């Protein structure tokens, strides 16, 4: 092997270790046969997973997270798609400023968005709940969904829609029979990316929730009573879900790339 290749492999390994070592240790200590998730590792046990599954508060939060993630992501994708479609097919000359306006929220820190929503809901007299958390997640994910879908609505796709119109399709028929099915992989990818972000989002979920909370908020509450291998088990679950969804997204987008290539 050439020294250049060796150096490349060494650097790559280092980078991967740097990124994944903390996660690997978190996962390892979720199998700790002891009361604290610190060295020494006392061998393999599933007791903390058992505890986690028996923990009603945790399981409720898990359900909340799935619902908030699912509903808010569905809304974010739907609104993002409609915005992208309208912008791409409407008046391209005015698209610039609108596109900027729609994507600018991506640069606003979550804590600012959370505080803003908090005072707005307060002013409107709306109580904090999972609904307000969901609205917060739509706010942060809509720009991203818009950007993903907008990038896939190029001139080639416009021509495909033109072909549908040419063959007699109404606007609605072209939208439902051609545009949406054609973008299906993109829409699913946007949904899952959005879901992943909602799934492990803490700041907004913490600020905007009251009695019913999502998984990251429960984890935060549990942290207050110190380190606990059960927390590692929850963390492993959260991480595995995220990684699984990201892998799904990658597959969706790759298969799309192949089809067009």
């Amino acid at each position: 092997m050439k020294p250049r290749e060796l150096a490349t492999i060494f650097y790559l390994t280092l980078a991967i270790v740097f990124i994944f070592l903390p996660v690997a240790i978190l996962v390892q200590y979720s199998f700790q046969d002891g009361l604290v998730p610190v060295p020494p590792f006392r061998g393999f046990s599933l007791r903390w997973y058992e505890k986690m599954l028996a923990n009603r508060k945790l399981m409720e939060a898990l359900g909340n997270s799935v619902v908030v993630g699912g509903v808010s992501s569905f809304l974010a994708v739907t609104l993002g798609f409609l915005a992208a479609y309208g912008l791409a097919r409407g008046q391209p000359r005015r698209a610039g400023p609108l596109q900027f306006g729609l994507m600018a929220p991506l640069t606003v820190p979550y804590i600012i968005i959370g505080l803003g929503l908090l005072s707005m809901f307060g002013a409107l007299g709306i109580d904090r709940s999972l609904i307000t958390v969901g609205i917060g997640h739509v706010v942060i994910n809509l720009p991203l969904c818009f950007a993903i879908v907008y990038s896939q609505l190029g001139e080639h796709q416009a021509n495909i829609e033109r072909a549908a119109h040419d063959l007699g399709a109404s606007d609605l028929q072209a939208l439902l029979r051609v545009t949406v099915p054609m973008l299906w992989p993109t829409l699913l990818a946007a949904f899952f990316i959005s879901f992943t972000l909602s799934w492990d989002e803490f700041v907004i979920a913490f600020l905007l929730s009251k009695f019913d909370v999502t998984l990251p908020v429960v984890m935060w509450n549990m942290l207050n009573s110190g380190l606990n291998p059960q927390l590692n088990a929850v963390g492993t679950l959260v991480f595995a879900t995220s990684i699984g969804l990201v892998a799904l997204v990658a597959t969706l987008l790759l298969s799309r790339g192949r089809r067009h290539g």
Partner: protein
Amino acid sequence: MAEPIVRLARVSKRYAEMVAVEPLDLDIDAGEFVVLLGPSGSGKTTILSMIGGFAAPTEGRVLIAGEDVTDLPPAKRPTATVFQDYALFPHMSVRSNVAFGLAMRKVPKGERHRRADEVLQLVGLEGFSDRGVHQLSGGQRQRVALARAIAVEPKVLLLDEPLGALDLALRRQMQEELVRIQKRLGTTFVHVTHDQEEAMSIADRVIVMNKGRVEDVGSPSRVYLRPASLFTASFMGENNILTGEVVQSISGIACVTTRVGTLTVPAQAAVGDNVTLSIRPEQLLIGGGGDGCLAIGRGRISETSFQGTHLRAHVAMETGGNNELLLRAPATEQLSVGSDVELSVRPTDLVMLKR
């Protein structure tokens, strides 16, 4: 005479700063294979878009089969388009692509599938019905795009550079098939291309476009052999263009002084006119030629290249200066660089173009 299937009446298209198509009158007869030919930016695709309903004319009316369709969207026009990038529906099978237009017309499923398979057979894609679009080669996609447009039985089929992405051999083959299919269906085809050889090989009538204006309209042979304008003369394949001044004009015969000497042309012109003459490279004859041939002069071969079907040569004429002529000699001709040749031309092959 029967009513034209397509009539463009004083149709023009202007964008903010630019004129895409200058006011244009054009009639296309039913069953005609018309080719709009021109370089990019000549307005040929804009004309196609205005017939198909994808672009609204700035002024003028578009009539199809006698009906004013200027304000109708593409869906309501009796036209179908084959797009340059094919624009197939990527999520559908070949059959569903072809049957799409029929589905929009509420044709029952069994009937439209039968019809789709029939059209696929016509374009040579029998047995491909169940494939996905992404499993097809470029040439096959092209055929699906054609089948999809034919399936709705349009009165006018519009083809926007449909063969542009295919390699040369496949392009030649598809040109022949397009003509075969067009003759068989009897549908009017309006085809856009920038490839003059393609235009000549498929068209009943060629419309040469340049900078938003029609330069020439006519049969391929007429447009090639007797171009109406300087642009047509140089765009329709290689040509020798000679500028000159009319020094004498007697009863339809003009004497023109050019860089290669004085040439006698059968054409109407006034003494003192500045004119342009065109001689196709294959119309230059080596040697004195036969009876009635006009001698052009002697020259020395400066460059040759063998092209298979012919031998292409540059000939530097004796008159000096920048006066090379391009010559196409039969492939069997033995011409070597440095040798001298006598060139002549049939007077009737000389075309005089007004500047």
